């Protein structure tokens, strides 16, 4: 049993339908968790790992001409 913050206030998770998943691409890995109450989304959180962002020396050289 756990307490979940929802649009209806604090609720026991046993009263809610839990859905979760992972979406991943070149930019990020997003783990999401949702709680639904009678077909209504009442909580959604996302835990997302950002991946690298690279500025190359070649790109700088191109900008400098």
């Amino acid at each position: 049993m756990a307490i979940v913050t929802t649009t209806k206030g604090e609720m026991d998770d046993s009263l809610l339908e839990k859905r979760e998943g992972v979406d991943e691409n070149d930019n990020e890995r997003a783990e999401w968790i949702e709680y639904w109450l009678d077909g209504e989304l009442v909580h959604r959180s996302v835990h997302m790992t950002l991946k690298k962002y690279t500025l190359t020396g070649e790109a700088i050289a191109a900008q400098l001409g």
Partner: protein
Amino acid sequence: MANTQAMTTSFKVDLFNAVHAFNATGVPAHTASTADTFKAALYLASSPGGTLGAGTTAYTSTGEVSSSGTNYSSGGVTVTFGTAPTSSGTTAFITPSASIVYSSVTLTTPFDAVLIYNSTQSNKAVSVHTFGSQTITAGTLTLVMPSNAAGTALLNIA
């Protein structure tokens, strides 16, 4: 051994630290031995004011997620850079030392980008990071940083 043409690695690290000034106009006054404050703002996937990218020069509230009734503060949250810029091989790099966290927010209009900007220096833009569209409902968005190493750091100058 022949000489080698290169942008020096020390210069790349210096870029992160605002050591050099090639132009006297608009140069930040970095005489104080304190780091600037950086922030991270979230932007809508379908922005009415245009899109963010390499051409973005500064933070703008246009296209930012709503701060009305969402518990999101306009301008976003502070980014912690607890580790100094460094280098490995010929790549200089830096990554925020903590996750960027938006707690207890409700953002029902899809957003897909975060802008990191320097709130100390006229909100000048640093970088834009995009991701798949997301919404948050009475929940928390946690942006976990990648490993702070050459090639995997959030910001690399290779």
